[in-house]
């Protein structure tokens, strides 16, 4: 379990913090205090206009230079001394009095303007960020291609552009004692369950950690069962999926600096859905979904089945296939279990190496993996032909599962099943699968059963489960969102 600070302590800490921050250092002006705070930050800038007695304090790399010039520098160049007050009275310049707020603003990319005792913050933030590009981990064939990037503002804008309602509420919650990374909790008022909103807000506030760098990391910090093998919140990188989640009554958690966005609550089966399911015709969508569940079963149990059949249950397979199997295993010196583990681990090596290597070197892996390991291992008699096929099929099937995080969990579970199959044959596989099913059904995602709508059985949700029913039929929001407005459209 992760340690979470008790609520009371948080309040106290906050109060204490506020006191310290707001303790007036009487002898210093706000400007001097700010300069003191930023001492040693050689990347901060302090621009002085002697004719107006104005200081600009900001981080050059956090502000948009064009906007800074157009909206701040130019007016100040051209303004006469007597016009300065009216200039500063524009609502564009926000007056602030607290040191803490000024520092936070400057760190957020705003420009602090000091004029005598008055301080104003101007938002001309525009740090460098990458352009909006298709998501690398969640590509689709049909449907929108843009994916989230590492900028929270941009991500928010992508969501707002899709859900144009004032009921879309955004709570900003800083996470990480040191980094103060902004997490945004999004929900549609009236559709999302308020209790879940406050529960999640509470969980995020209670996180006790120095820094959070990615949404996947954040999701591990707020999960119901952090020690489980399986992720309990799905994180997606596509704004259309997030918009769909919002409309379904789910709660969205966005983290500054992460292109992944958490949807809560999630069920196990959400990890097998993609945008394509919804953009294709419903029959093809359903077929692909079934294909994915098939792939899940293959990836978790196929190699294990090979091991159990070749080492215990020869009577299960037809004679002609048995002959092929036995002939191909004829020269192999290892028991099926060692043979299978060897190949599975090799495939994992290949996958991991392929994932980390730069693309230019990556091709080498393909050649080495494909030719050397596949062909040569068989010829050398280290492994059998059939096993190569089996391992390859389960590896391919594991990549059919759209979520990489889930696919990695399944692959790990597979090793357990292979061991059990080698130890006890089919009985072992059954024991292993039973344990997995028991574990999955014990999981919850912010209180929602993980295996819903299969168990507990929610018949209305089956229209968007194994099936992707026609849109006319999908009239209700998923039960696990516990939305106060379960029926879509109708008030």
């Amino acid at each position: 379990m992760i340690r979470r600070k008790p609520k009371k302590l948080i309040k106290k800490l906050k109060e204490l913090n506020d006191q310290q921050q707001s303790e007036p250092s009487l002898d210093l002006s706000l400007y001097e205090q700010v300069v003191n705070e930023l001492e040693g930050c050689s990347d901060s800038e302090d621009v002085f206009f002697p004719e107006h007695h104005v200081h600009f304090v900001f981080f050059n790399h956090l502000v948009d230079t064009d906007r800074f010039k157009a909206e701040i520098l130019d007016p100040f160049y051209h303004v006469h001394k007597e016009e300065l007050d009216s200039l500063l009275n524009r609502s564009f310049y926000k007056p602030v009095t607290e040191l803490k707020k000024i520092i936070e603003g400057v760190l957020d990319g705003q420009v602090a303007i000091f004029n005598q005792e008055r301080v104003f913050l101007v938002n001309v933030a525009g740090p460098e960020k990458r352009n909006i590009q298709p998501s690398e981990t969640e590509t689709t064939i049909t449907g929108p291609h843009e994916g989230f990037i590492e900028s929270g503002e941009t991500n928010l804008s992508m969501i707002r552009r899709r859900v144009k309602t004032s009921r879309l509420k955004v709570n900003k919650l800083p996470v990480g004692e040191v980094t103060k990374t902004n997490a945004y909790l999004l929900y549609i008022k009236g559709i999302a369950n308020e209790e879940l909103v406050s529960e999640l807000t509470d969980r995020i506030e209670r996180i006790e950690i120095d820094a959070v760098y990615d949404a996947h990391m954040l999701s591990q910090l707020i999960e119901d069962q952090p020690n489980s093998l399986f992720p309990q919140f799905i994180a997606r990188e596509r704004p259309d999926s997030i918009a769909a989640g919002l409309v379904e009554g789910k709660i969205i958690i966005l983290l500054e600096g992460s292109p992944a966005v958490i949807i809560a609550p999630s069920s196990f089966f959400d990890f097998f859905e993609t945008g394509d399911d919804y953009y294709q015709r419903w029959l093809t969508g359903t077929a692909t979904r079934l294909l994915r569940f098939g792939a899940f079963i293959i990836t978790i149990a196929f190699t294990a089945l090979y091991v159990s059949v070749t080492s215990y249950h020869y009577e299960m397979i037809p004679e002609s296939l048995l002959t092929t199997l036995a002939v191909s295993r004829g020269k192999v010196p290892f028991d099926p279990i060692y043979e299978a583990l060897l190949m599975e681990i090799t495939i994992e090596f290949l996958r991991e190496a392929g994932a980390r290597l730069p693309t230019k070197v990556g091709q080498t892996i393909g050649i080495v993996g494909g030719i050397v390991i596949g062909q040569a291992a068989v010829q050398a008699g280290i492994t059998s032909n059939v096993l190569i096929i089996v391992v390859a099929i389960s590896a391919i099937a594991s990549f059919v599962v759209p979520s990489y995080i889930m696919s990695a969990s399944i692959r790990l579970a597979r090793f357990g099943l292979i061991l059990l199959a080698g130890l006890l044959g089919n009985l072992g596989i059954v024991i292993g699968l039973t344990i997995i099913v028991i574990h999955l059904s014990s999981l919850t995602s912010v209180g929602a059963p993980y295996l819903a709508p299969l168990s507990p059985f929610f018949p209305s949700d089956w229209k968007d489960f194994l099936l992707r029913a026609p849109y006319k039929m999908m009239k209700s929001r998923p039960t696990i969102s516990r939305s106060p407005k379960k029926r879509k459209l109708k008030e």
Partner: protein
Amino acid sequence: MRNLKLLVIVFSLIFLLLGCNDQKIIENLGFMSVMCFDKASDSDEEKMLVTSTFPSFSDESTSTEIKLDTVAYSKKEAEKQLSAKTEQQIVNGQIRSLIFGEEFASDGINRIIQSVERDREIGSQVKVVVAEGEASAILESIPIESTGNYVDKMLKKDTDKFTIPYADIHHFSRDLLDDGIDPVVPLIGVEGKDVVVKGSALFRGDQYVGNLTIPESKILLLLIGKVKSSDLVVKIPQESGYRNFFFSYNHSKPKVNVKKNGAGIKEIRIHVTMEGALLEDTGSHIKGDSPTNYKEVEKLIDRHLTNEAAKLIEILKEKQADSLGVSRIVRNSVSYGQWKSMKEEDLLEKVPVNISFNVVVRDNGMLQ
């Protein structure tokens, strides 16, 4: 804490179940595909000669079939002895058929069937076959590597066409143990160099008593139950030579009626309706394909089948093999008390069976 408990349960399960480990790694196995049972030439009546084949995987790319035989008192003993003759571990989970030699089968095969039924590795769909002469001769004559598969496919092809009865272990012991019916199984034999399907083998109890040719088997199957699709070659003597029909029927159904007089059984009537196409007619008088023209042919085939069926009943009576289940028909029509008071053995002998056919020729094939 919960996780710890789970771990303890998992590991204790694994350790408790380790005794169940019964590892059989496939390349070390010699899986028998067929077992042949013959009477041993020994003077000892109980002894049997068991012949079996299984593939050997010594070479990298091919498998060769090894044939071994042994003399033993029981099936399991034979397996142990066969195992001792090779480096492979002999297992019987891939057995497809049990072939019994005529002589061995006439002594009764129940002990083998029982032993096979008990074996948890053997499924209930293992075929029971009787071979003319020596069963081991069959293994000599099969041209391809996988003998068990060959026999299995050969029988499947014919049982699918309703040429010979379907008989697996389950059917055999059901008919054996059921009151009022005797098992009937396919009969194969060697002709020249080839293995051929000969017809059906009739049993009285678990003892082989006689056989039927393929045409006779077909008629037996027509009387026993529904036939989905099969064909008949009908040969009818004429003034000069024969008139040949090839009648392909796709639907046939027997209707059984028991006529009683008071408490006793008067007779059993079996009326078979068949529908199909006349695909060949050497004395073709049919002009066009008007249904009225079929009447004559239908009558000829009716009469032919009725005669053949009567002959079949005579054979069954002679061999005292109730393959048709005459006694069972009687049993199903009377009360339990009445059935108990009847002598089952006499029924086949005493109750007359009256068989009639109603052949309907739907068309005469595809006339362009």
